[in-house]
């Protein structure tokens, strides 16, 4: 029997390491096995290195690294089953929770938001990553693993963006756009140009790319949904009717002033009412200009603003309130004038408080509990441009009506 020398054992061990066996225990196993084969089968007169090279291919099909890869794979095999189980459970859980959430939202029942959050978080942070890992493991080529990785990033982003949009949380649009950028400018080019090179996958790649492009296009059209034309029209009509009514009452008041022998207190009433209405008109004009500028347009009328951007939520709040949620000076000046106007009417005309302008704080059910909010917050904070303008017109009409009761 041939007995291996120390340097020959070292040579085999080095060669095993060079060939990609990194686990020490596996190196020792293979070293002992190869030594056993050599010691059993090699004749004394044979050349060691030649014999070693001749028996080595018995251990693999392509290269020795296969044994290392196979061992690593089997050692993670146990985790694979646990992952697959969690993958299936989280997938079913997310889908069912999302459907129940959608059902509750449709029926305006409580709990919809909570279920959406739970479903999408479970989908984004359990299901999608696990799916990505298990699918990537099945792929032999790195380019396919990269495609799966990018697709997962897109999936997580678009789901979170949808959640943020549904919950009206900030940065929803930014996330939505980011996910579409990933889809159109990263995922699609990588997917298309890697798939089209192979004749086997060429047709499928083209068809899938068209489907992805169309689906992406549909998502893109959903980016900034506005209310329907009918909603815009009805909002405008409502706003316009109030404006017309305010003008009508104002004209009637002017006629009344002209026919009566006008007393000093009536003159003061007229001046005060006109002054407040003029300030409100200026504030409205400012808001319209601010909103037009914000939308990249200039010189839009009240009707155009309502028809085109009436549902925009940010402009009116940004124009009338500061970052701490406090009303800006212009609005507060109007409120001060309104308080004085009420006081003047009450004092000079002995009017019952029920005919005065309602400037009181109000109770409102907030997210947590009932809260007290100011008159200005109730009428103008976090409202669309259309509703803000409508409330200003309502205010003008109310002032003119109070004025009418005094004449």
């Amino acid at each position, binding site marked *: 029997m041939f007995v291996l020398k120390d340097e020959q*054992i070292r040579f085999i061990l080095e060669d095993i390491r060079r060939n990609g066996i990194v686990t020490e225990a*596996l190196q020792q196993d293979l070293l002992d096995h190869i030594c056993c*084969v050599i010691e059993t089968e090699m004749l004394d007169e044979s050349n060691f290195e030649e014999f070693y090279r001749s028996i080595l291919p018995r251990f693999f099909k392509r290269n020795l690294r296969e044994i290392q890869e*196979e061992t690593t794979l*089997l*050692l993670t095999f146990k985790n694979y089953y646990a992952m697959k189980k969690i993958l299936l459970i989280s997938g079913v859980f997310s889908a069912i929770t999302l459907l129940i959430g959608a059902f509750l939202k449709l029926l305006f029942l409580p709990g919809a938001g909570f279920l959406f959050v739970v479903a999408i978080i479970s989908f984004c942070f359990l299901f999608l990553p696990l799916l990505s890992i*298990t699918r990537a*493991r099945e792929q032999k080529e790195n380019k396919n693993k990269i495609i799966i990785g990018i697709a997962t990033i897109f999936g997580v982003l678009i789901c979170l963006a949808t959640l943020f949009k549904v919950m009206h949380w900030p940065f929803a649009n930014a996330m939505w756009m980011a996910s579409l950028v990933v889809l159109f400018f990263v995922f699609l080019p990588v997917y298309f140009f890697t798939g089209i090179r192979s004749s086997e996958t060429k047709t499928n790649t083209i068809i899938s790319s068209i489907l992805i492009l169309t689906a992406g296009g549909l998502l893109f059209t959903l980016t900034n949904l506005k209310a329907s034309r009918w909603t815009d029209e009805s909002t405008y009509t409502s706003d316009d009717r109030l404006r017309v009514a305010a003008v009508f009452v104002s004209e009637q008041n002017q006629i009344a002033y002209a026919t009566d022998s006008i007393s000093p207190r009536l003159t003061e009433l007229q001046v005060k009412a006109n002054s407040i209405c003029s300030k409100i008109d200026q504030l409205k004009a400012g808001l319209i200009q601010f909103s037009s500028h914000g939308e990249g347009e200039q010189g839009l009328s009240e009707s155009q603003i309502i028809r085109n951007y009436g549902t925009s939520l940010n402009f009116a709040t940004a124009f009338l309130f500061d970052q701490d949620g406090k009303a800006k000076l212009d609005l507060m000046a109007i409120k001060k004038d309104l308080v004085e106007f009420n006081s003047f009417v009450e004092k000079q005309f002995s009017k019952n408080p029920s005919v005065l302008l309602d400037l009181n704080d109000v109770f409102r059910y907030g997210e947590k509990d009932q809260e007290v909010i100011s008159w200005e917050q109730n009428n103008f904070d976090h409202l669309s441009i259309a509703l803000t303008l409508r409330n200003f017109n309502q205010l003008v009409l109310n002032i003119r009506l109070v004025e009418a009761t005094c004449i």
Partner: protein
Amino acid sequence: MYIKKIVYICCMYSSELIKGTLKTIILKLLSVNDKMYGYEITQMVKELTGGKIQLTEGALYPTLHALEAQGILSTEVVNVGNRIRKYYSITQTGKKVAKDKVDEFSEFIGTMMDLLDLKPKLV
């Protein structure tokens, strides 16, 4: 998912036929022998089957390591001359797994015999 790239067992039978029996073979051998090392296992299988089944190293060692990680096998390192030899032996848990595997395989053989209408050869 984990369809092996390496041929599990090199033998006169098709790999499809005996795929999945490697664990059963290893566990059965180790449950009747106190401890064995890798080369010894391959030689014993070869001997017992008259060379009809020969385990390849590419399949044997990954399986041995996986079984060790699962606590089904335990190992003992012994210095043999100027190298290390790792002896594998079956644990208590492993003995139960080995019995289950053999029973399952035996039942499978019985089912296949019924299904394919095969009669055992009488000696």
